[in-house]
């Protein structure tokens, strides 16, 4: 089924077209949700809510830009809303609260590299992880993040800096990255 036919079917609430769209994009979108979620179950809940929104708001897509990008934006917003419902989230974006967390090397799972990296990201405290996901992976600006998370722009920046440092530390401990002359030479490690 072409993307145009699939979209047209979704606009007419056709179940087979919706299913096609779901199976085409759900694996990638679940990995997006997984980076924000506490658990696999939470990620599936987010995915479910996100796709319901995708199908109910498909008329707003109007073929502007890539469909995947549009779906991804909805997923990210769904994840953020999900997190905001959790009171612990607002505490976790508090930079002081999150600064003293230590990473234990043995807790890092030893699996294939893409998954290793994602699992390392998921080891970050919730606030750090969310800012890092939004800034480094989704490409939102700190200003946009501050609006999305109801925090100061400066808080977003500092959260990201600390998240990045902590993630580098985790990746080095896992031997995904190597420290080279006081610098993280991640490129040499992953692309020898």
């Amino acid at each position: 089924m072409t993307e145009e036919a699939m979209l047209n079917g979704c606009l007419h609430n056709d179940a087979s077209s919706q299913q096609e769209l779901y199976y085409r994009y759900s694996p990638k979108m679940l990995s997006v949700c997984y980076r924000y979620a506490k658990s696999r179950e939470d990620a599936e809940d987010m995915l479910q809510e996100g796709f319901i929104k995708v199908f109910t708001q498909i008329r707003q897509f109007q073929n502007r830009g890539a469909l995947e990008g549009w779906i991804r934006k909805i997923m990210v917003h769904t994840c953020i809303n999900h997190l905001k419902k959790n009171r612990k989230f607002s505490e976790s974006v508090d930079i002081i609260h999150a600064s003293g967390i230590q990473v234990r090397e043995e807790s890092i799972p030893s699996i294939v590299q893409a998954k290793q990296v994602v699992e390392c990201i998921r080891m970050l405290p919730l606030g750090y992880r969310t800012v890092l996901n939004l800034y480094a992976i989704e490409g939102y600006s700190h200003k946009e993040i501050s609006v999305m998370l109801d925090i100061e722009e400066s808080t977003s920046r500092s959260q990201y800096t600390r998240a990045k440092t902590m993630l580098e530390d985790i990746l080095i401990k896992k031997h995904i990255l190597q420290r080279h002359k006081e610098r993280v030479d991640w490129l040499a490690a992953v692309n020898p």
Partner: protein
Amino acid sequence: MDEFESFLRDKADQYKLYPSDKVWGNINKSLHPRKKWPYVAMALLLVGVGISVDYSLFNFTNSNSQNLTLKHGTVSPEKNNIAGGNLAPILSSTLAAPSSGKEKIATIPARLSTREPVTDIAGTGIEESQVVVSEPSLNEELHSPTREIISLDRKSLTEFRMPAVLPKPGNITENTVENKSSRKSLWAVFPKKSKLEWQVYFSPTASYRKLTGGVSDVTYFSNNAPFNGNQQDASEVSKAVTQKPSFGAEIGTSLAYKLSDHFRLKAGIQFNYTRYQLRAYNFTPEKASFGIQHNGYFADTINVISNYRNYDGYGSTWLQNQYLQVSIPIGFEWSIVGNKKFHWNIASTIQPTYNLTNNAYMLSTDFQHYGQDPSLVRKWNINAGVETFISYNMGPVTWRVGPQFRYQLISSYQKNYPIKEYLLDYGFKIGISKTLR
């Protein structure tokens, strides 16, 4: 974007996870919910039709009963041969006979049925001699030699008392068997009267609405104060708006099926025009936000452009919210009390309703604006109607007048919109009904 961020993005994009099957199942269920009410309505309708058909075919009841009394001592054995078709001479002769001494009476109750064969009479202890026959017309029918009564229902038989001069039960049985071929249904005795009644009505209404939704639920989305100035302390959405009723109308027609003199089932079609007014303030075009809730929290926002504010603006105006609906009222009527001309009745209906068109301004979730988004308005809904009316029988037609109340059971808006609206219609119904031939 530095190299580290690029690395993270690449790795994150390479990673895929496959959701469990139940996720798609839940999504599909949410997008294509099974519409239960048509099945429920259809089932109720089928049950109603089934009961009605069964009632009509096997349990005919003559409701306009009158009693005739036959006095003891004038009834000869052969005249008591009811099964043989000789009841007419009994009635005609004994009605004229003088009363003498202690009266012993046998009773044929008003309820006559085609289900029970007359041979059951043999099992009853018949002693007395009052015969009660229903329907004045029955007397006339019985005078005709071609008319026969061939059956009685079980309840009647327990009350049936015959004079001592009656033939032995065995004779009755024999006669019954002999005359089997000449049995006729009661439908032949009583001309069938239609139980269907056609009704048509019109009702001017005053329409209003009930708004609900806790302020705390609604304002979670905007995370700021929903009200201006002294309205900050409002605890209900309804306190944040100014609205007033407006006139609407209902017009409809229905078919009623008479289960008894006092009880009718009915179903029909009805058009409803409902409207009310909202106070709004003109302003330059602004964004009006409708927060969409999912599982108790706000998952998304629909933004529309609006020229109307709920509070301060250039000048006030009254917006008119209008709904044109078609519904299928299914319900009953019960005649509580009355005589041949007048009856006092109550009625109730459940009304699956389809929203044909609407022009409705919705309050934004920050309570600041009025905007329109048809996608947030339900197409299907369910209403309940109650009414009481006086019916006046004018022979060919019956007039019906009385107050009615109609209430919308489900919010006008989609369930994920946190503000709930329930439409109310107060009306005065005027209608006529006519029994179908």
